């Protein structure tokens, strides 16, 4: 018996040895390649390759026409890196290994990089040679600063400077066909919304031979926050501060799920579920299933952001199902609440692209970022290449017809051509900005947006006697400019109580609220009270205090607190 086991052991060792050898030889060839690459880099006529990690990136080569043009102008090539499967550990692992790419877009994890000394201060560089950046940010440059204790600038970019609000980013949206079928009703409250869904659902229990789904959410992964958490806040008239409800005057921050208004919203969802109006798979389906359901045109409404289901929208238009696309609605809990969809948050700062402390090409990387902020670069990344993507007619830029078409219907357009691909998260002008000749710097001027509506959208707008969807929302002027930006953009210190409590609270609320929504309506109140008790047990008030302090510090840093 012993002998037989040792045969097995021998076999295993052999196998192991085989794998180890195979692995070794692999890594050796890998290293060899690296070395040869490095030798090529420094030569003058070849472009410098900068590695660029983007937390929002997708798999892509830097070789489309716009990218080639960028390389031509700057001598810089980017090597795009991205987190696989939306993992949160990319930045911590980067820090643990000390192996940084040249350029890093870390979103909320930038604080960890600053603390670890992984990124450099940009203040001096901006002062010395950041002409384009200075011109772009103007007096908003304070909003790039890190914190009261360390008011240096580490990042540039991400959000547009000088935004105009000609479109909403989404939230409650209903199929155009529902509006048409019901004779274009006014939908302003959750009650109206539900009534419209019920009526249409009773009339058409099936669409194209498949079961109609009145409302579908995607609550199985991080998008829970987008399709379940955020809409709750928007319905209660809160601005987009992530998991926080912030008083813009006093800077008082509250973990928003503690508020009674939010409970009301989830109670409504709970009711929808009990009445069979909520897709029972809302919290278990994968993103792909969700998009394919939406693309089939049988989902009557969503509570989602446009960017999250843009693929489905394009697929619907491509299939000729324009009437199955969605109209945004200013839905709130009731008359007393105002939809904040058109809120102007000012330039939010916070997130942005940083240059790593280990990069060999810090100067070059900065020059590249500065160039990206120039007028020339902004026109290139927004419009593409003259003669190929746009023409100049009567001194004005006009997108070519097929490019405009593809921009609206083809989800691969910007990936293939590069047009629009390099705007976010680089430094960018907003859609309200104009160039030196007075033309809008992005193709998304209001006229363009209106022109780009599909035929069904245009017809519905006409019925409502509106030019643009935003006409039925409370206007940007009415809502005022946010003094604190957006709380979800803040970099929360790593390992702080706020960070740990918020993570625990988020995990808890996602779970408990989901269970409460799917539960029996009779049990809802108890489930909610239990959750609040659990939140209090994990010392949520402490997180509220720390967040309030952060908001107030930000307002002081930005000089918006007077």
């Amino acid at each position, binding site marked *: 018996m012993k002998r037989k086991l040792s045969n097995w052991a021998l076999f295993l060792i052999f196998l192991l040895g085989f794998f180890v050898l195979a692995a070794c030889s692999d890594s050796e060839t890998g290293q060899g390649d690296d070395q040869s690459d490095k030798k090529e880099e420094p030569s003058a006529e070849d472009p410098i390759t900068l590695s660029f990690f983007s937390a929002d990136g997708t798999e892509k080569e830097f070789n489309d026409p716009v990218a080639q043009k960028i390389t031509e102008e700057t001598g810089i090539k980017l090597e795009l890196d991205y987190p696989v499967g939306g993992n949160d*550990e990319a930045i911590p692992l980067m820090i643990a290994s*000390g192996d940084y790419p040249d350029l890093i877009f870390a979103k909320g994890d930038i604080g960890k990089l600053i603390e670890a000394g992984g990124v450099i201060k940009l203040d001096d560089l901006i002062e010395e040679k950041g002409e384009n950046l200075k011109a772009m940010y103007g007096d908003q440059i304070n909003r790039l600063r890190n914190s009261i204790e360390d008011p240096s600038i580490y990042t540039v970019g991400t959000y547009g400077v000088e935004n105009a609000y000609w479109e909403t980013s989404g939230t409650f949206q209903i199929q155009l066909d529902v509006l048409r079928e019901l004779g274009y009703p006014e939908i302003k409250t959750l009650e109206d919304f539900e009534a419209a869904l019920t009526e249409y659902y009773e009339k058409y229990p099936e669409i194209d031979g498949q079961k109609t789904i009145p409302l579908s959410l995607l609550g199985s992964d991080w998008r829970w926050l987008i399709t379940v958490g955020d809409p709750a806040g928007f319905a209660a008239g809160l601005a987009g501060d992530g998991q926080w409800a912030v008083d813009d005057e006093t800077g008082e921050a509250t973990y928003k799920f503690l508020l009674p208004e939010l409970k009301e919203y989830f109670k409504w969802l709970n009711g929808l579920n009990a009445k069979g109006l909520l897709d029972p*798979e809302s919290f278990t389906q994968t993103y792909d299933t969700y998009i394919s359901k939406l693309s089939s045109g049988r989902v009557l409404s969503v509570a989602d952001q446009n960017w999250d289901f843009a693929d489905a929208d394009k697929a619907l238009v491509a299939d000729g199902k324009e009437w199955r696309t969605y109209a945004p609605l200013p839905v709130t809990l009731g008359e007393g609440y105002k939809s904040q969809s058109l809120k102007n948050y000012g330039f939010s700062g916070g997130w942005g692209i940083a240059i790593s402390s280990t990069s060999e090409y810090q100067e070059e990387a900065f020059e590249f970022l500065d160039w990206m902020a120039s007028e020339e670069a902004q026109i290139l990344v927004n419009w593409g290449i003259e003669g190929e993507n746009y023409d100049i007619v009567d001194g004005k830029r006009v997108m070519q017809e097929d490019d405009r078409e593809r921009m609206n219907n083809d989800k691969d357009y910007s990936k293939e051509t590069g047009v629009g691909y390099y705007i976010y998260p680089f430094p960018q002008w907003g859609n309200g900005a104009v160039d030196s000749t007075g033309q809008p710097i992005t193709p998304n001027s209001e006229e363009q947006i209106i022109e780009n509506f599909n035929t069904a959208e245009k017809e519905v707008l006409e019925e409502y006697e509106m030019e643009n969807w935003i006409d039925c929302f409370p206007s940007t002027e009415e809502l005022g400019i946010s003094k604190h930006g957006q709380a979800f953009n803040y970099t929360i210190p790593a390992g702080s109580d706020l960070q740990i409590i918020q993570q625990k609270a988020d995990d808890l609320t996602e779970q408990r609220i989901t269970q409460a929504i799917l539960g029996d309506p009779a049990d809802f109140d108890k489930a909610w009270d239990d959750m609040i008790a659990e939140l209090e047990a994990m010392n949520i008030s402490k997180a509220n205090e720390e967040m309030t302090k952060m908001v107030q510090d930000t307002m002081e840093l930005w000089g918006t607190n007077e």
Partner: protein
Amino acid sequence: MSRENNSASAQSNLPETSSPVERQIRIGSGITKNNKKPYTKSFWKRASKQKALLLMSIPFVIWLLVFKYIPIAGWVMAFQDYKPQFGFFEQEWVGWKHFKDLFNEPMFYTALENTLGMGILGLVFGTVSAIVFALLLNELRFLTLKKWTQTISYLPHFVSWVIVANIVITMLSQEGIFNNILVGLGIIDQPINYMAKPEMFWGIVTLSDVWKETGWNAIIYLAAMAGVDPQLYEAAKVDGASRIRQMWHITLPSIRAVIIVLLILNIGNLINIGFEKQMLLGNNIVMEKALVIDLYALDYGIGMFRYSFGTAIGIFKSVISVILILICNSVAKRIGEGRVF
């Protein structure tokens, strides 16, 4: 495998083993009772005799040291408030703080319970299904069919969990094939949303694990069964034993040592069940049943930049593993069976 070996393995199934082969091994490795004073000369003599073997093992010893022992030095991190930007000596020492945090955290106990729960279920069902499957395959006399079945059955092992999880979720969804069949046959009235039932989560994980790994795990048992001496079966047949009797009295006892060694190794890994299954199959509704220690360490350790906290969890896991292995091994020793060390 030689005939002598086969008979040895058959004999060793008796509680007190003293086969000639085994005695020989003991003498060879110098642990027999009458060889108590080891002196250098014979050591070097033996070493030089076995130098080819020793040379062959060197790369693996080095591998073991580099990848398994040197990293243990990183454990000191658990007693510091580790910040990667500082050097080793600049770190702040915090003693048992991270362990205290860990043991005061209710979430950790949920994670521990889930880990052990799914670990034990996986171990029991995984082992039983693999052995039963191997037994059935072993009885197949039609060779082509046997080979085909074996190949097909272990193919799922090579499919990544990402894909398996998607298949499982799709099949178990409200409009999935599983509900369609059950509703069609009139067994249930309404489709059941399996993925939204926390009480079903452990079962779903275990079943998908069994589906994926049974074929693969059966290979080692099949190989052990192939080594059983055919004479034993012939003798049993002469005595009038049915095929079921033969399985029970010959096949199973012959592979008992393999089963026990694998069990000991797997029990040591009970707490290291990974997190892919739970992460990919789980969702917000079932999270309280899906949160496992590795997932917890990822989200609340590395994911939040708390390297020290993550390391503390790692140490805790290692300690549990070692304890489990020691217990199992001594139990195996006591009942006189094959053991790991």
